[in-house]
């Protein structure tokens, strides 16, 4: 057999075997209808709060599907999708497109802010504060009471290792104010790391269950989530934990963990009520959406999605205090810690 024949034979065999496109399903076409179907089906299959929020998703389909035709423009489609997703009133539900981003901000926007960082830095810490890791602001409120504000749990993990150095500096304090007001969440690896420094013993602080089937009420069994003491530095003396409606998602998991410790008092407003660990998915046109896919519960198995976590002491910053450069919530925290 000649070499040329062999090469031809081999190429024929290789070509015959190139069946990738034959076997693989093709991507859905980028049409308004396909984008609608994909979005609707993605929520139908993965979203975790249909029953809790009393949403009839089939009815939403019947209501919105007729509005989408092949002639629907991107602008119209984005408006239809945004309107449809606003039904959820879920801060974890977002839609990102070239035209803009839809997100629900009702979890904080309709409530008092209850936090003014400038007042704390200028009137309480009197300029004597430090920043660490890009997320911590800390100092001493009095000779015996320390203050730590944690702005986010979304930075790199190594940023949160700074907590040990901060606690070492504040180790002589009689009490500590831990302020997470305005903290929109991040990773529970980070929030658990911080909370573990305040733990007196291993404690159950949360239950979760995941959406895991086609039915809207298909969930896994409840998983128990624990927090336990860790780290070089620990602080188990009294702690006042300050919250407002801007505390969301992982920051709420942090509040859940902290409030199971007996010497922690939660003061301020309800948290934002965003408990559904989200996942990103994409549409045939490249737009990306996000949805909640688990349910989180308190240790007493109460769901707090959209409701928020109730503080031990419910308090707003009064208008008079705000005008006078006072933080009502922080004042109460100091008073409690000084008792």
């Amino acid at each position: 057999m000649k070499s040329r024949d062999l090469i031809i034979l081999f190429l024929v065999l290789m070509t015959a075997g190139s069946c990738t496109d034959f076997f693989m399903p093709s991507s859905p076409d980028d049409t308004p209808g396909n984008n609608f179907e994909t979005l609707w089906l993605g929520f139908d299959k993965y979203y975790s709060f249909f029953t809790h929020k009393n949403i009839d998703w089939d009815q939403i389909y019947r209501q919105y599907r007729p509005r989408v035709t092949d002639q629907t423009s991107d602008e119209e489609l984005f408006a239809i999708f945004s309107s449809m997703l606003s039904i959820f009133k879920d801060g974890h539900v977002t839609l990102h497109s070239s035209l803009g981003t839809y997100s629900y901000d009702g979890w904080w926007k309709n409530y008092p802010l209850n936090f003014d960082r400038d007042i704390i830095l200028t009137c309480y810490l009197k300029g004597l504060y430090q920043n660490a890791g890009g997320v911590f602001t800390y100092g001493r409120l009095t000779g015996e009471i320390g203050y730590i504000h944690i702005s986010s749990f979304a930075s790199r993990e190594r940023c949160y290792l700074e907590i040990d150095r901060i606690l070492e500096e504040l180790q002589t304090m009689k009490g500590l104010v831990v302020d997470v007001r305005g903290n929109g969440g991040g990773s529970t690896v980070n929030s658990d790391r911080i909370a573990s420094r305040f733990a007196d013993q291993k404690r159950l602080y949360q239950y979760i269950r995941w959406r895991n089937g086609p039915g809207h009420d298909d969930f896994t069994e409840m998983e128990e989530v624990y927090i336990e003491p860790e780290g070089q530095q620990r602080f188990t003396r009294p702690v006042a934990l300050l919250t407002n409606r801007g505390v969301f998602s992982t920051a709420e998991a942090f509040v859940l963990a902290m409030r199971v410790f007996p010497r922690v008092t939660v003061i301020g407003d309800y948290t934002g009520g965003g408990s559904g660990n989200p996942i990103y998915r994409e549409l045939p046109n490249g737009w990306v959406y996000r949805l909640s896919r688990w349910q989180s519960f308190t240790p007493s198995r109460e769901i707090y999605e959209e409701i928020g976590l109730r503080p031990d002491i419910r308090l707003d910053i009064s208008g008079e205090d705000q005008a006078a450069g006072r933080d009502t919530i922080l004042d109460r925290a100091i008073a409690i810690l000084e008792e």
Partner: protein
Amino acid sequence: MASQVRSHPSRATWISPQWLDKKNPIIYTLERSIRGRSEIKFGTKALWVLALTAFLAKPLYTLAPDSKSRKNRISLHTGLFSTSIRDELGSPLTYKGSGIPLYLSYRFAGSRNRHTAALLYSRNQLTPNRYFSVGSHNMQHSRFSFSYGYHHFLMPVFKNRGKVFLGVIWDTHISLRELGYIWNFSNSFGDRISSLDASFFLETRLGRNYRLSFQLDFPLLAVMGRTSYNQRDVETEVVTFNRFLRLKNSFSLERILSPRFNVRFEYRFYYYRYPEPFPVYSAGDHYLVGLTIKL
């Protein structure tokens, strides 16, 4: 507001960095690699494979029952491959891409039986092959597979110029994928399959200097694990051939260069499909060329 990421040390987990099992070097290396943080470049890896080949050559030579007949063959291949993946947990789109694989194999080619062990590693970037006005999405994909097969001679064909073998193959593969969206959003997925396959193997000589072979594998029993609905745990199940569809085949053409060396061209194809509820479809073509050392 940002996404929550869970860490539960009590659960068997993989894929995400916080529960990455650093005691597992394969997973750890692939995970590092897929996230683009691997400090070892591709070329360096190739050198490591070559060094490993040289390291293995001597003991394999001494293990050969009849070293004069040179029945032990070590081959190192590289070339081009293309991959298509659709993982419906992450995207409704099919992602495609190409890259350069590394393929190392050892064969014992006896007259009545064959033993084959093979390692394959590939890493590439896949795209949905579609223009998005919002920007480009991509998937970083790493695939690692190991297989060991035993084939037994069944009958001669083509007037004794060819042989048909039947056998079984133990095959394990790991596929790790990070689907990166615009705005730096990303999702990590993966799957692993260990299967016992029935295998058909045909080899025939073409002229004095060529050897053509064809192999087709079909899984009988498989242990499959894939990213769960929570992207943290692995859902593992044992499935039989009626639920798990996978095809693997290869054509190879070997040119005898000398008593010690052959050059080998190989085409490999695979396709597999995970069942519901979160189907994964994956297929790939590998076009390989390599050098075979006969010991």
